[in-house]
């Protein structure tokens, strides 16, 4: 029984982390139909920015509770700067080109971002603990967890919910859905598609950076940690259905629980369980669990 609750808790915590890492990626794919390989780089930027802002704040002697503010400020900075910059300067030039080219463009941006981090922050690992430890711990079935982990779960649920509401319920969301379904007609009825694309990409960048910022207090950030996150994000959205928010949540939950089960029951499988899940899902249902089948245009 205790093992069950522990696996459930660990799985959900990891799922929350995965969701926060991947939701931006699936959003960008949903609107722009581009797999943004640079997503991992934006995630890393968010984590580094949040960490250094929080560290600075603590050095200046401010109240540690303000570090939570930094976790929200950092992704805004990253999203607002990187989003429009990448979209307008680079991405825009490859809309309509072969998909291979689009993928390679985002891949090259990823390489640049990765080294940019080294140039800006150096190579030593950086970390800040205040946001993580400030809230204290609690006991579940005799095992101690940090309240911050619960915060992550709550934020993931709330944020995911907010995004879904924004897409389904607001005017902007409906406009975005219209653009997703048919770009030309949307343009024909007067929607500024370019603006929608830029906004969506910026939101995606913000989400990526937000994921990084929220996770930063639990880890030590060092150059190169984006590479792993990138592959994880790919796997999660491939499983859940690319372009689908609920899919990202489900994919995150599946991978999170699988990994928790692996760690507690079959530690040897930890390395391969995520790729196995990806292969199994893609082979049975190529578009992912909630993905839509692509219509071929003649």
């Amino acid at each position, binding site marked *: 029984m*205790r*093992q069950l609750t*522990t696996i459930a*808790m*660990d*799985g959900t*915590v*990891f799922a929350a*982390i995965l969701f926060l890492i991947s939701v931006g990626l699936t959003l960008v794919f949903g609107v722009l139909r581009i797999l943004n390989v640079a997503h991992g780089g934006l995630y890393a930027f968010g984590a580094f920015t949040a960490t250094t802002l929080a560290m600075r704040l603590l050095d200046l002697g401010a109240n540690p509770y303000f570090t939570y503010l930094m976790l929200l400020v950092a992704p805004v900075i990253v999203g607002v700067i990187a989003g429009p910059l990448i979209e307008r300067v680079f991405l825009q030039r490859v809309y309509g080109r072969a998909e291979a080219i689009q993928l390679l463009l985002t891949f090259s941006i990823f390489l640049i971002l990765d080294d940019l981090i*080294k140039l800006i922050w150096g*190579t*030593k*690992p950086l*970390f800040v*603990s205040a946001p*993580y*430890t400030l809230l204290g*711990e609690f006991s579940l079935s005799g*095992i*101690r*967890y*940090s309240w911050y*982990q619960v915060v992550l779960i709550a934020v993931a649920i709330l944020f995911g919910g907010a995004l879904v509401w924004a897409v389904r319920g607001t005017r902007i969301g409906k406009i975005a859905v219209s653009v997703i379904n048919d770009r030309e007609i949307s343009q024909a009825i007067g929607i500024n598609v370019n603006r929608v694309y830029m906004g969506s990409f910026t939101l995606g960048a913000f989400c990526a950076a937000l994921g990084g910022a929220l996770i930063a207090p*639990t*880890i*030590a*950030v*060092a*150059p*190169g*940690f984006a590479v*792993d996150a990138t592959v994880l994000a790919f796997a999660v959205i491939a499983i859940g259905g690319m372009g689908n928010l609920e899919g990202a949540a489900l994919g995150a939950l599946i991978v999170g629980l699988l*990994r*928790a089960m692996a*760690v*507690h029951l079959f*530690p*040897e499988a*930890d*390395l391969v369980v995520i790729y196995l899940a990806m292969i199994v899902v893609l082979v049975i249902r190529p578009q992912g669990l909630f993905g839509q089948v692509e219509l071929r245009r003649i």
Partner: protein
Amino acid sequence: MRRFTLPLGLLCCLLTVGALAFILTAPAQVASQARPAGAPAELKVGFVDFLSGPAVLFGASGKNTAEWIVDKWNKEGGIRGVKVKLVIVDEAGGPDKQVTEFRRLALDEKVDTVVGFTSSATCLAIAPVAEELKVLTVVHICGTRRLTEERPLKYVFRTSNHQAADSVMLARYVLSVKPDVKTIAGANEDYAWGRDSWDDFKASMLRLKPDVKVTAELWTKIQAGEYSAEISKLLVAKPDVVHSTFWAAGLITFIKQGAPRGLFKDSLVALSVAEQSLQDLKKEMPDGVIVAPRATPGYFLYPDPAKNPLQKEFVEGIKARYGRYPEYAYHRTYQAFAGLRAAYEKAIDQGGGKWPKTEDVTKAFEGLTWQTPYGTITMRADHQAVHGGLVGLTKFNPQYGFPTLDRMATFQAEEIMPPVGVKSPDWIAQLKK
């Protein structure tokens, strides 16, 4: 009268100038007299370590030490008058890149010797190339026992203990501070380093105390960065002792995530590479954790710098130049360079004062004992050097702002390294208390 004073004045001036000239040029004369016959203009040493990627923590330490020690030598006149030039190369990129770089160092830069290599994969890949190109190669950190245990080496030397020593040393220390240990668990990264280290620790523990039970063996991705599930598992299993070889950012994350949840209170955790990160962890590192600078015979506070001039020079020099106290990667780099120099000097002496060929240096290196800040090291005939190891428990030190080692224990080389010709697993199976 003027006719005689002018020459006298001139003579005095000339004498003074001449004396000054003699004094000022004397050291150069002395140096050039000591310069071995046939010596090159400079000794080119290639240094290969990680300048990028997660292992940059090792590479930065290595590069810092290399530059500091070479600058020091050059200021003092070089190795018997021959200045040393460093050519620094990044170890990142995998074997095909590293083999290319090694060939470039040897054939294009024409270095006389190559020092370095932290990654086990790299050092195993370049060893055959070093042998093929006949380049003296001094491996400073790479830990795989396979480098020196699997095939005979002619041009490759390793100047520090390999990874079996870390595990055996930790096992011995665990038993000395917690002789009633009943359960152990491992949390290591799933690659050769983690696997070999855990296997050796487990085997040593089981050999030295056969009734010990293993309650969990956890494997993570290299530098996984997310360990909550593993920590939960350890909290559930509640082993007496946890063994881990996590390093750099992964280690810091593990401690960050584990300490608040009580992992370090529930279990005695033994970390073989953690000494490197103590200065970064500062208050994050709990007290009472077993920490070692791998199996290295000292750290920046032991032997006491106040009583040991070589240690004092090293610690103060590194701190002054880089703002950090030297940790084990610094020291192992020092070991390598010091050994290289000692080998060259012995070869020069053995050759009657002329500059040695590579084969003379390799011959001189075998059986050589040389001095380092932490004590002496001896190079064995199988090209594996052995030395002792230090381990202790962390205790926050307000003077430094980070934990230093308490209840230290030192182990002799024979206690933690297998003898020549015996493979580590076989030796561990026969380990004596």
